[in-house]
């Protein structure tokens, strides 16, 4: 009964003081919404990096010649010739934790079809490459192990290459093209993948058997990389250890010698890039906290000033028999209603802004539950506290003192 009455009084007061209510809510709405939107941007970019990397194959392991790049100088990988086919064979024979593996050699050059030519990259791999990278062909078929053995001049090309050397829309599969003047028969076209997070066009590639690329294009014996995929994401770190020990043995490295190769799992790559986007998130959190603080100060100001204004009202309510606790409860209910409504509107606006950013600015976003909870809680607590605190002070006055308040 008493609570119901106080609830009525509070809602009445909220309606009577529309401007004050709206201004207070505005502080809360903007505070909550900006935190949600900013954290959504931060989380979104983090997530998009993660998905891009896992789309490359989250079990993927790469082995490159030369010591680890991280910390310290190392030689250009291309001039290192320590990775060889016998390394690959040793890995293939000894490792238990890999489901696929392929040697990789890479080079750059011109792809030519008649009068059309296009600078691109060629990768020499074996058929398992598609499974490692989790890509498919949109037409044609992958070359076979037999074609690798015979160093057949067959190629799989990406969509960008197709667009540039078959500008008239001919069917590329079955056509002859040349890469650095070596003729290749196109036997398949890769599924379109677009750019990855790092801005690389993943369709601007030519794949051919590694034997062919080694002999006919690059004229080398060594490998640039070995790519493999672990049997599972969980086993990837173990696979990295296993591969390292196989290679150390292969390269006859003594305990005092450092690795002349480096093995990396995707997981490491993910954490490297995640930590970069972590920085972005921290920055955004900082900005969001500031806007939350400003919103909070706004709420505080308006609540504080309005209670001062309403000291007279408090005096009158006490004069006609309102107890201190009644007054406090009224202001508490008011503050809760305003803060919660503002908070909900803020969440809605924040989510709306997030959708807008995603749709019209094309930024990846991901709304984090914690951002909703935290911003809502901070604003609600600020609103409620600063609605309650000045009311508590006013209700401690004698009624007549409060009534006299100017």
């Amino acid at each position, binding site marked *: 009964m008493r609570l119901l009455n106080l609830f009525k009084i509070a809602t009445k007061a909220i309606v009577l003081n529309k401007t004050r209510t709206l201004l207070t809510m505005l502080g809360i709405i903007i505070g909550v919404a900006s935190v949600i939107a900013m954290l959504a941007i931060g989380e979104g970019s983090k997530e998009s990096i993660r998905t891009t990397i896992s789309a490359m194959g989250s079990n993927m392991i790469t082995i490159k010649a030369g010591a680890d790049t991280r910390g310290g100088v190392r030689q250009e990988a291309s001039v290192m010739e320590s990775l060889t086919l016998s390394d690959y064979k040793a890995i293939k024979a000894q490792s238990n934790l890999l489901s696929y593996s392929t040697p990789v050699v890479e080079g750059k050059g011109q792809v030519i079809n008649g009068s059309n030519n296009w600078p691109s990259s060629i990768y020499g791999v074996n058929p398992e490459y598609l499974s490692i990278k989790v890509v498919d062909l949109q037409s044609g078929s992958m070359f076979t192990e037999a074609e690798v053995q015979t160093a057949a001049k067959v190629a799989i090309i990406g969509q960008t290459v197709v667009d540039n050397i078959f500008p008239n829309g001919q069917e590329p599969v079955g056509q002859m093209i040349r890469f650095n003047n070596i003729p290749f028969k196109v036997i398949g076209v890769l599924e379109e993948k677009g750019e990855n997070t790092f801005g690389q066009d993943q369709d601007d590639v030519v794949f051919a058997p590694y034997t062919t690329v080694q002999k006919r294009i690059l004229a080398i014996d060594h490998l640039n990389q070995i790519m493999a995929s672990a049997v599972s994401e969980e086993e990837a770190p173990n696979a990295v250890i296993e591969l390292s020990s196989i290679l150390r043995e292969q390269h006859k490295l003594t305990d005092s010698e450092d690795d002349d190769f480096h093995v990396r799992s995707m997981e490491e790559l993910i954490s490297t890039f995640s930590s970069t986007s972590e920085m972005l998130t921290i920055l955004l959190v900082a900005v969001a906290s500031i806007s939350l603080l400003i919103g909070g100060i706004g709420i505080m100001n308006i609540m504080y000033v309005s209670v001062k204004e309403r000291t007279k009202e408090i005096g009158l309510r006490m004069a006609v028999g309102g107890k*201190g606790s009644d007054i406090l409860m009224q202001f508490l209910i008011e503050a809760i209603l305003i803060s919660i409504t503002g908070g909900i509107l803020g969440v809605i606006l924040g989510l709306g802004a997030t959708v807008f950013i995603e749709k019209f600015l094309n930024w990846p976003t991901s709304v984090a539950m914690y951002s909703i909870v935290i911003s809502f809680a901070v604003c609600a607590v600020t609103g409620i506290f600063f609605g309650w605190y000045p009311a508590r002070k006013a209700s401690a006055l004698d009624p*007549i003192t409060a009534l006299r308040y100017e």
Partner: protein
Amino acid sequence: MSKAIIKIEDLKREFTMGTETVHALRGISFDIKEGEFVTIMGSSGSGKSTMLNILGCLDQPTSGTYQIDGVRVKDLSRNELATIRNEKIGFIFQSYNLLARTSAIENVELPLLYNSKVSSEERRKRAIEALEKVGLGERLHHTQSQLSGGQQQRVAIARSLVNNPVMILADEATGNLDTRTSYEIMSLFQELNKQGITITFVTHEPDIATFSSRTIVLKDGEIMQDYLNNNVQSAANELAKLPKQDH
């Protein structure tokens, strides 16, 4: 003789403003018995409102004692004082003190909102009755800014009646009313007084004092005169004597 509902002894109230001290009440003592109708008179600044605020449990004296119905007010907690204000006292402020942007009926209902024994239907019913008593039955939903000064004053009077108080404290309750309306209000008060309600009425106008049974005159925070009125006039009679088309 009936018991004293108000008993004050050597009541002093000082206001400190910076280094200066204003002695609003300089030691006042008197009793008001249950069922009395007392008018308090005195020039402006003599301490009438200050005294009435203390009697209404809205303010505390600097020194001296105040007993209400035999209980020392000093010994009561803030909540007990609030309950007394809510259930026993009807207070009419000199400056009305209505809630802004709030209708007449809601202003009158206000004291009952803080009394959980009164249901919302009864609250409304009693508020309408109180407003009808002061002649504002047609103005239930007008807000403060839509009412004349006299009408606002009558809303304030209705608010003091709505909780069926045992004691009404009125600070210049007719100050803003024309003769006819103020006589109407006075006859209402006389009626309430006959029903046993104790009334303490601050006024400037000597003719209002003739409707009361006792008059206390203040000057500079001290009692100048305190006399019984042997010839109490009936406000209803005086009202009847007024020319008909007064307004």
